[in-house]
């Protein structure tokens, strides 16, 4: 079983819609949860991260972690065509520098 599971998509939504991207994880020791965005032919870049359970908001983006269900979510409000990219979730244990990655979900925002 993969430690971080993510639906590869693609997920196609109209411009302006609210997008929900999700991951599940299996390792209870994970404490940090990240969302990276990767545009075509580029390396991933960090969008935001959360520590333990709870929500974190940054502009149109909200990250949510539910440790009881081992569920990680990213919400994008007022989605724009420029949000079209692959979104990767990642997790790590507190004492470890290595990230465990999901497979990424390809998101397409249609104008």
């Amino acid at each position, binding site marked *: 079983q*993969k430690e*971080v599971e*993510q639906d*590869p998509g693609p997920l196609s939504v109209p411009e302006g819609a609210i997008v929900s991207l999700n991951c599940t994880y299996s390792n209870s020791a994970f404490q*940090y949860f*990240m969302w990276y965005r990767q545009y075509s*032919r*580029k*390396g*991933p*870049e*960090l969008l935001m*991260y959360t520590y333990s359970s709870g929500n974190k908001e940054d502009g149109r983006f909200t990250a949510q972690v539910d440790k009881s269900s081992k569920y990680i979510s990213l919400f994008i409000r007022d989605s724009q065509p420029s949000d079209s990219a692959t979104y*990767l979730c990642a997790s*790590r244990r507190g004492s470890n*520098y*290595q*990230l465990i*990655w*999901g*497979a*990424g979900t390809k998101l397409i925002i249609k104008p």
Partner: protein
Amino acid sequence: EADIYQTPRYLVIGTGKKITLECSQTMGHDKMYWYQQDPGMELHLIHYSYGVNSTEKGDLSSESTVSRIRTEHFPLTLESARPSHTSQYLCASIGLAGYNEQFFGPGTRLTVL
């Protein structure tokens, strides 16, 4: 903006050739990583380094080798390329400011014929 560079960006070579993928960063980061990324698959860690003269193999078995003689430079070498090595190779680094933010280079897309 993070400064981490990879060359070449694209490489097409024949089986059996020796190749070196270059990765350099100008941020003075101690920790550097090499990942392999295939379409629809998660990033797989193949090598990492926590400082000069320190290298370790990652979770994914790889026939490549790495070296870390200088902080800013972390090249990856394949002694004899095979078609199974065809993939995207991503280099990343992290600094002391936060272990959750890995800075990635643009990647090298390798095709072995």
